[in-house]
């Protein structure tokens, strides 16, 4: 799957941009604040239907404009697919401006879900370092997004789990009568356990899979110097269990053990919503002991694994978006990454301030765009 063309109109700092893209490697070069990340974000927006940088669609409309149009032509399974996205502010009456988003695939109006089913992308941006350094909730979010992308049932169970959790916490907060409280909780507990155990098991299996892939990549990137290992930390299980009825049973026992404490703290204390995972390099926890470059490399290994998982599932690589990765990787690591992208023919968009990061061989094999104030300058 790859972009052949992109056209942007009044999107971010681009008034009018039209590019023919390379099926393999595309490099966006430019000084700070010229629009490199904007362009990457726009391409991703076309296949995702929303921005990975903001929840507010209207933010991507060029300042002082009423609408933005994004258009992409993508080759998927040797067929050309046209995606058009329109973001239009509507102010037909005195009520608040509303934003209308229209997604069209081959001229037919479609929902975002249709887009997400057809087109896949993997993004690596500086914020993703938070997967290593940030709070457990960010790692859960990473896991959940990854798994949902390749396993739709997981997404369904995940949202149901959080819905059950909401009901359960509501009972813990509101019901004062202890007997009634327990009765009411028991209505929800079997479902919490069922959905929750499924989530735990799927995450354990997923981590195991990622472990194998990431290990391979990480060995190569680091010239066999670093061994990466991911471990899932469940507050329900002592060992990484892969038997669903056992997980069910453990979950049930933990809930019973926590009854009193839960009544005191008025919230659900155990379950996958409190789980985490850690990354170790040569036995040391990377969150505490890893250097910046090491942490970045770990995220890169995880992202490369994600690429492979999607390829396994879809039969084709997703589109790869790399924002600002080059600056913190040493030459060997950069070389490996670019080599891999070219070897596997993954369509990749990469931003960089400096063209010196790319050797002549790479430059020859890629298309380079210099960006200045929202325009492409010929090199």
């Amino acid at each position: 799957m790859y972009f052949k063309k992109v056209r942007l109109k009044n999107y971010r700092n681009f008034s009018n941009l039209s590019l023919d893209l390379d099926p393999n490697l595309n490099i966006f070069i430019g000084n700070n604040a010229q629009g490199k990340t904007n362009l990457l974000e726009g391409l991703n927006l076309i296949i995702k239907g929303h921005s990975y940088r903001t929840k507010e669609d209207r933010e991507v409309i060029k300042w002082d404009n009423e609408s933005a149009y994004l258009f992409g032509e993508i080759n998927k399974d040797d067929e050309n697919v046209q995606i058009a996205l329109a973001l239009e502010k509507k102010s037909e009456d005195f009520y608040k401006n509303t934003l209308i988003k229209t997604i069209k695939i081959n001229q037919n109006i479609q929902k975002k879900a249709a887009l997400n089913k057809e087109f896949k992308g993997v993004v690596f941006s500086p914020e993703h370092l938070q997967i290593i350094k940030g709070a457990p909730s960010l790692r859960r979010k990473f896991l959940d997004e990854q798994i949902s992308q390749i396993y739709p049932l997981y997404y369904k169970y995940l949202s149901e789990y959080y819905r059950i959790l909401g009901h359960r916490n509501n009972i813990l907060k509101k019901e004062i009568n202890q007997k009634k409280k327990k009765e009411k909780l028991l209505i929800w507990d079997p479902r919490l356990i069922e959905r929750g155990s499924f989530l735990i098991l799927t995450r354990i299996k997923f981590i195991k899979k990622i472990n194998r892939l990431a290990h391979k990549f990480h060995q190569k990137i680091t010239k066999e110097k670093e061994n990466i290992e991911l471990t899932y930390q469940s507050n329900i299980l002592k060992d990484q269990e892969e038997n669903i009825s056992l997980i069910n049973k453990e979950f049930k026992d933990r809930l019973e053990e926590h009854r009193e404490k839960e009544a005191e703290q008025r919230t659900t204390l155990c379950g996958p919503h409190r789980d985490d995972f850690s990354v170790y390099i040569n036995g040391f926890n990377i969150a505490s002991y890893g250097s910046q470059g090491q942490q970045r490399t770990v995220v890169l290994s995880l992202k490369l694994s994600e690429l492979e998982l999607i390829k396994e599932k879809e039969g084709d690589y997703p589109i790869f978006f790399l924002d600002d990765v080059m600056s913190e990787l040493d030459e060997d690591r950069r070389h490996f990454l670019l080599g891999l992208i070219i070897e596997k023919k993954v369509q990749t968009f990469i931003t960089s301030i400096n063209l010196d990061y790319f050797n002549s061989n790479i430059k020859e094999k890629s298309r380079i765009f210099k960006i200045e104030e929202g325009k492409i300058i010929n090199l």
Partner: protein
Amino acid sequence: MSFRYTKPFARLIDEFSKMPGIGPKTAQRLAFYILKNSSESVASLAKAILEAKEKVKHCSICGNITDQELCEICRNTNRDKSTICVIERVRDLIAIENTGEYKGLYHVLEGVISPLDGVEPENLKIDSLLKRLKTEKIQEIILATNPNIEGEVTASYITKLIEPLKIKVTRIAYGVPIGGSLEFADEVTLTQALMGRQEMK
């Protein structure tokens, strides 16, 4: 300062926008519609609203809406009186009736268990259902709550309560889109669902 409508008109918009599925824009459109209509037709609309509110009540057996003590379905001697289909709301009853496949009776719960919305079992018409099971000669209960988590939990809660009574309990098997609701299911999927119901354990 931004423009504001005159008070009586703003109030009308406000009342409309309290209605389900009506956003501010639609409320405004409806209010303009009222304004441009003749006084007679507006009076007739107001009368219809008041009359509906006064005369329509809930069937004392099943909870369906009716203008009498018992609804049409409960009064109908041709219905199969040994089966009760348990539903969340009256509008689900209408969806199932439209399939023409179901000939039994109904029981409207008036919601599902959903603590986040302040609904607990005691807020639902579950007691009256249990009473019916003891007084009427019921052989099968079909649980047709919606296929979302609240509907599922409500169905198993009721199943547990009915267990000692040794009545057959089935849950309708859904081809209904996951997370969808009965009201929006088309007739074909609903018909399939009714025929493919499964026994609850």
